[in-house]
């Protein structure tokens, strides 16, 4: 079974971003970029499935600007076999990303798609569900444990009330949550080896898919910031403040 794992280039999760001067977007000039943390977990899981003999090949896919090659190299260093970059200088919406990915899935005869449950930039959390919908297959979102067994994949999902167990028929799309695994650090030899692994580039426009945006961003603003309050010197003082607040409520 071939696994497709999706990788997104995002701003480093530890960087606090700013809105640009004309309130049209977030200012990403000179911002450190990285692989989306949830995508990294997906890559790790795909590689583990290959190491366990479940997967025959792991293909990493990124859809975005040409610099996304850096994040694909990261995926290759973790252990993906080859990579595909579908280039688009325009930021694409989850629906367009899902449509492009569905084309790749069909072409490559993919048995399982792994991806992050959300990207930490747009915080949409839609791509996996949309892809499963377009493919007409089962979906497992917010997955914290997975086990492939024959034609099925058994999952534990992190849901609001606790944990849910479900079983899906393959092929399927699975979105990864934080607790699925801890991604390995790519070793230097593997980083060097990744540079020689195949990375193919295609243009998004060549897929014959409707990429037109459905959503217009009218404005991007900074949120109201909280003012730091007072530092108290004792628990007694804290209890006093809490009592005042309680009465106010």
């Amino acid at each position, binding site marked *: 079974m071939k696994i497709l794992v999706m990788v997104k280039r995002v701003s480093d999760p530890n960087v606090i971003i700013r809105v640009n001067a004309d309130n049209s977007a977030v200012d990403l000039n000179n911002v450190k970029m990285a692989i989306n943390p949830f995508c990294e977990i997906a890559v790790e899981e795909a590689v583990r499935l290959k190491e366990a003999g479940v997967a025959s090949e792991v293909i990493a896919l990124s859809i975005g600007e040409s610099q996304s090659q850096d994040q694909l190299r990261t995926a290759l260093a973790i252990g993906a076999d080859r990579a595909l970059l579908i280039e688009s200088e325009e930021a694409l919406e989850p629906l367009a990303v899902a449509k492009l990915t569905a084309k790749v899935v069909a072409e490559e005869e993919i048995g399982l798609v792994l991806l992050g449950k959300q990207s930490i930039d747009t915080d949409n959390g839609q791509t996996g569900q949309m892809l499963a919908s377009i493919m007409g297959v089962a*979906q497992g979102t917010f997955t914290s444990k997975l086990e492939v067994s024959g034609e099925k994949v058994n999952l534990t999902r992190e849901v609001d009330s606790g944990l849910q167990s*479900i079983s899906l028929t393959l092929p399927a799309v699975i979105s990864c949550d934080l607790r699925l695994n801890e991604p390995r650090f790519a070793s230097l030899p593997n980083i060097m080896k990744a540079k020689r692994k195949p990375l193919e580039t295609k243009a998004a426009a060549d897929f014959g898919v409707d990429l037109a945006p459905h959503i217009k961003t009218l404005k991007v603003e900074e949120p109201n910031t909280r003012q730091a309050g007072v530092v108290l010197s004792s628990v007694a003082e804290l209890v006093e403040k809490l009592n005042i607040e309680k009465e106010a409520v």
Partner: protein
Amino acid sequence: MTILIIAEHDNGSLKEITLNAVTAATEIGGDIDMLVAGENCASAAQAAAKISGISRVRVADHACYNGQLAENVAALIQSVASEYSHIIAPSTSNGKNILPRVAAALDVAHFSDIISVESPDTFKRTIYAGNAIATVQSDDAIKVLTVRGTAFPLSEQNGSAIIEALSTVKDLGLSTFIDESVAESERPELTSASTIISGGRGMQSGDNFQMLEKVADKLGAAVGASRAAVDAGYVPNDMQVGQTGKIVAPDLYIAVGISGAIQHLAGMKDSKVIVAINKDPDAPIFQVADFGLVADLFDAVPELDQAL
């Protein structure tokens, strides 16, 4: 305009966050239907009929909707979608699981986790862990959106909607629900609690959360946790507050041994009053706290427990 709201429920009862979604729908305007899909979900449907502003409750009660599997529920919603201008769900794990699947099937965009309704086609939502707010608009014929519960007040419950059975059975046979382990607790739910006390990595172990539970019981509070505490295995995932966990906005939020990483702040910074107890005076949590106490939590929390 007619709006369809997907009820959040556990068959036996309706979850309060559904009432927040109804308020968002009321702000959009138009008739509102509510869909209750589940198995043996009649009592949830009766609760839904009491929500003010709902004209019709449609109940799809069938074994194939047990566990609210995304494949089947999305197909059910798709089968009635053409009757609606908006399809709305609360931003819960169910809503987030099901609605993007519906949107793709309808070939329309999905608005995730909106925090305000500007007009029937324009909404605000947070991006970059709440560090920016985007105003977004779409001309799609059907708007599909999830609603952040804490951003909208609860709707009233003095309505009397008609209840109709929706007998459509969409069993795609792609997925099987096995079971769900529900954390039993006498305390209020995180997303609707008026007071929350949360612990972070500083708690050092799951056992130490008992200190917070004692204080929580005195305050009538829910107990939450930072991602670090959940990752370390101290407490289960359903307690996580943050960008990728639960978004909360209680009247009082007490952060204990939590440094205040960006992703945690994204989940709680809309709380009315924030209290931080941390031994590191430089912890970022103090930058958003109304009241900060620089102290060892193992001294401060038992003292707080005594004093309450």
